[in-house]
């Protein structure tokens, strides 16, 4: 049997493997009524005890959203979404903070255990008083975690330790209360309310998310991380993340996400805004593992996300790294607006589509300041009936003298029912700018497989090895804490797709 046929068979057998994070937590929840209206927007704002200006801001976004049309240009197909048939607010019922783990809702604890979060951190996440400020055991580099359960942030760890450095890391709803001036100044400054259909929707109904502020000259001593989970049925998750790195600061931020297995499709429409001032660096890493639907394409998350970073300061840098393995449909283009002179934008992406998954993802690099530089490395892997599109724009304005871009996007096809598409947009209005783009599409070469198998590797291991090599340029950009998880995830996703 030729190796490729074997691969496809292996793929078929593995795709039946269940989604590891597909469980549902039975927990007491509080819902807003189903549907979307001005009243719901007011309800969410009131629940969060928000100031008047934010309510106005939300209502303005809602009014704009009503006039907007859902974008149809991405190369993805899905039935019309009924925006009135979803809950826009769902939160675990609030009780006074438990004194010890024993008092924590055991269902919530089970959830964190299943997600592989260490017990120590579970205690913190569950809000056990006093936990979270002791140094972590075993000398392991600590990671500060903000966990978002459906619509609300449930806990943030290592808060006090970060506060010592002047770093603010909390839920955005908390930031609205405690640091309104910062939120007011930066919210919507990178992704305006009317930016696009899903950003407008998010602006109207966003319920929580993370807020990070790194003061001047501070290098954040640990990785910051947000963990998102959609749990309740018929909910949409609309989180909003805002990260501000003041002059000379440095932060690395990780984002992970999962959802239970359900036959219905759930909407996730997040907005992430990054602002980097002079000499600041933001590294934003995502491992996206929302429920992708079953092997027949039933269920799964619609992941329609707007992520954008502004390099406002000179010599600032924003780097996006994403490993996209989940979601029925992924539609996102983490972008960089390179305003400051000599600022740098980076985008490293691995996107895998298996079964009936669809992904239309890529980046946008807007070169505005002189000598701005950007690098794009995208690796797309399609298997089963998956459709994978890279869509990326590089735009060089007349003032971006000496700007430089390099783009490389490679696609790997596994099986003859899937598709791989590449759509770069290169727009240059500056003579001295240099733009280079290259793209390849191929399948795993028989001779590579033969070489590995000849040395005793199984078909599955050989494909895994080759695929890992294919993605290496991107995986090496991930922080240590994530790299291991990402590689495992790749293997699991590819178990379904490449053997």
């Amino acid at each position: 049997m030729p190796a490729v046929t074997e691969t496809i068979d292996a793929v078929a057998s593995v795709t039946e493997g269940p989604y590891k994070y597909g469980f549902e937590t039975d927990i007491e929840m509080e819902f807003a009524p189903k549907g979307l209206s001005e009243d719901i927007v007011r309800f969410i704002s009131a629940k969060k005890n928000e100031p008047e200006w934010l309510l106005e801001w939300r209502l303005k976004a809602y009014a704009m959203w009503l006039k907007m049309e859902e974008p149809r240009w991405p190369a993805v197909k899905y039935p019309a979404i009924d925006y009135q048939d979803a809950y826009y607010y769902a939160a675990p019922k609030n009780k006074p903070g438990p004194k010890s783990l024993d008092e924590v809702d055991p269902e919530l604890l089970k959830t964190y255990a299943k997600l592989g979060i260490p017990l120590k951190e579970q205690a913190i996440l569950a809000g056990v008083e006093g936990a979270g400020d002791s140094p972590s055991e075993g000398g392991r580099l600590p990671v500060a975690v903000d966990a978002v359960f459906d619509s609300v942030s449930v806990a943030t760890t290592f808060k006090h330790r970060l506060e010592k450095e002047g770093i603010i890391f909390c839920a955005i709803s908390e930031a609205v209360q405690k640091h309104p001036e910062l939120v007011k100044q930066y919210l919507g400054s990178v992704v305006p309310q009317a930016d696009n259909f899903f950003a407008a929707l998010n602006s109207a109904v966003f319920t929580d998310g993370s807020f990070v502020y790194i003061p001047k000259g501070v290098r954040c001593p640990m990785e910051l991380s947000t963990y998102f989970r959609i749990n309740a049925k018929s909910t949409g998750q609309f989180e909003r993340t805002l990260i501000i790195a003041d002059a000379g600061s440095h932060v690395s931020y990780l984002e992970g996400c999962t959802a239970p297995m359900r036959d219905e499709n759930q909407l996730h429409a997040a907005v992430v805004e990054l602002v980097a001032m002079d000499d600041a660096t933001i590294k934003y890493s995502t491992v996206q593992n929302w429920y992708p639907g079953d092997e027949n394409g039933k269920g799964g998350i619609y992941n329609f996300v707007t992520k954008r970073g502004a390099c406002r300061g000179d010599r600032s840098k924003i780097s996006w790294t994403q490993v996209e393995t989940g979601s029925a449909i992924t539609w996102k283009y983490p972008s960089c607006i390179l305003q400051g002179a000599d600022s740098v934008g980076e985008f490293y992406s691995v996107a895998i589509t298996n079964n009936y998954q669809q992904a239309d993802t890529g980046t946008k690099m807007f070169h505005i300041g002189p000598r701005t530089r950007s690098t794009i490395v995208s690796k797309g892997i399609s298997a089963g009936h998956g459709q994978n599109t890279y869509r990326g724009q590089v735009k060089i304005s007349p003032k971006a003298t000496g700007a430089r871009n390099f783009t490389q996007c490679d696609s790997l096809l596994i099986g003859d029912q899937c598709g791989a598409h590449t759509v770069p947009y290169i727009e240059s209005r500056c003579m001295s700018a240099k733009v280079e783009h290259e793209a390849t599409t191929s399948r795993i070469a028989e001779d590579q497989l033969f070489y590995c198998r000849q040395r005793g590797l199984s078909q599955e291991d050989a494909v895994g090895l080759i695929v890992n090599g294919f993605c290496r340029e991107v995986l090496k950009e991930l922080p240590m804490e994530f790299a291991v998880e990402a590689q495992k995830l790749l293997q699991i996703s590819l178990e379904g797709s490449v053997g």
Partner: protein
Amino acid sequence: MSVLFEPGPEGFLRRYEGLNARLPGHRTPWVTALREQAAKAFREQGFPTRKIEAWHYTDLNLLARSGFAEALTPVDEDVALPEATAPQRVVFLDGRFRADLAETPDSGIPVRSLGANLSAAEGLLGGVAKLDEVPMAALNTMLFEDGALIDLPAETNGGAIELLSIIQSGERPVAVHPRHVIRLGKGASLVLIERAIGRGDGRYLHNPVVEIVLEEGAHLTHARIQQEGPAGLFLSTVFAKAAAGATYDSFLLHAGAKLSRSEAYVSLDGPKAMAHLNGAQLLSDGQHGDCTTFLDHAAPDCASRQTVKTVLAGKSRGVFQGKIHVHQIAQRTDGYQMNQALLLSDQAEIDSKPQLEIYADDVKCSHGATVGELDEDQLFYLRARGIPAATARSMLIEAFLQEAVDAVEEETARNALATAVAGWWEKVA
């Protein structure tokens, strides 16, 4: 003074309604049916706007705002012709076939007027064109009056032919919609140099459509040289389909016109068919050039090659859009696409969108794109050897273009292109 018909799609539609009882083929039912179908498609689509993804970079506002007039060329007018690029030549003046100006050697092949021989084009005319997707082709089909009909029998070598189109724009802003229909029988071969020249500085619309059918193993070299007048609007469309083992080797040169856009829809329908869609755009102040291609790999074992170069001077804008669609059946496809742009001025703009859409797994497809200015090191190298700056620049620009022109294997076509490209920079600078 000429009578202009009203601007916009309505003007053209009204003109069709007033003229359809006199257009060639008005007594032939299949022709009138085709024109009706085209009129319906054009009425529904109108002129493309920038809201359409494929037209994002090219604005037809200038066309939509202009009123045009009917071409009225006296038959006996004495016309000065440029030197021929091939031994055989047919000439169209303001879109009309001029048998008296043709040059036919003894070894020449029959090239007929389409308008006068419509019955011979049944099944060919409108056979490849996509009227519902390409409004400019619908407009052409609705209003075409003439063009060339070449139907080469199997195993014939047709030599090299120049199709010269001259538009004399004086005070009359004419709109001309020539239609050329070409079929090469099994194993036949032909070199076709399609050249468009504009005389005068006035505005006009030249909207040619070429339909090409290549049967098994046929080989067509198709060089398209656009040297329209400075205010001319050139919107051309080629539809080609290649059967098993056939080769469509094309090269597009945009050197003139205020606004030009050439679209090519090429379909590789049989195994081992091959397509070259090369091109170059030389744009200077005030010009807009757009090279857009759609290549369908619809059969296994086909190959395609595309190199498009754009040189931009002054306040000009260049567009390249190239889509390669590999169908699921098209296993073992080998596709390569390269587009490069050279910006010579800080007011120039390039928009480039290469695109791969792939549904087969056993493929080897790649594309590359570069945008930049002349290499300072190379300029320095030449100047250090005593070559003046202007000459050095010219040498480097020609070298940049040379690579694309060299891809044309057939000598007559390559020489014609090389002549058209040579010395461009000296004229601009």
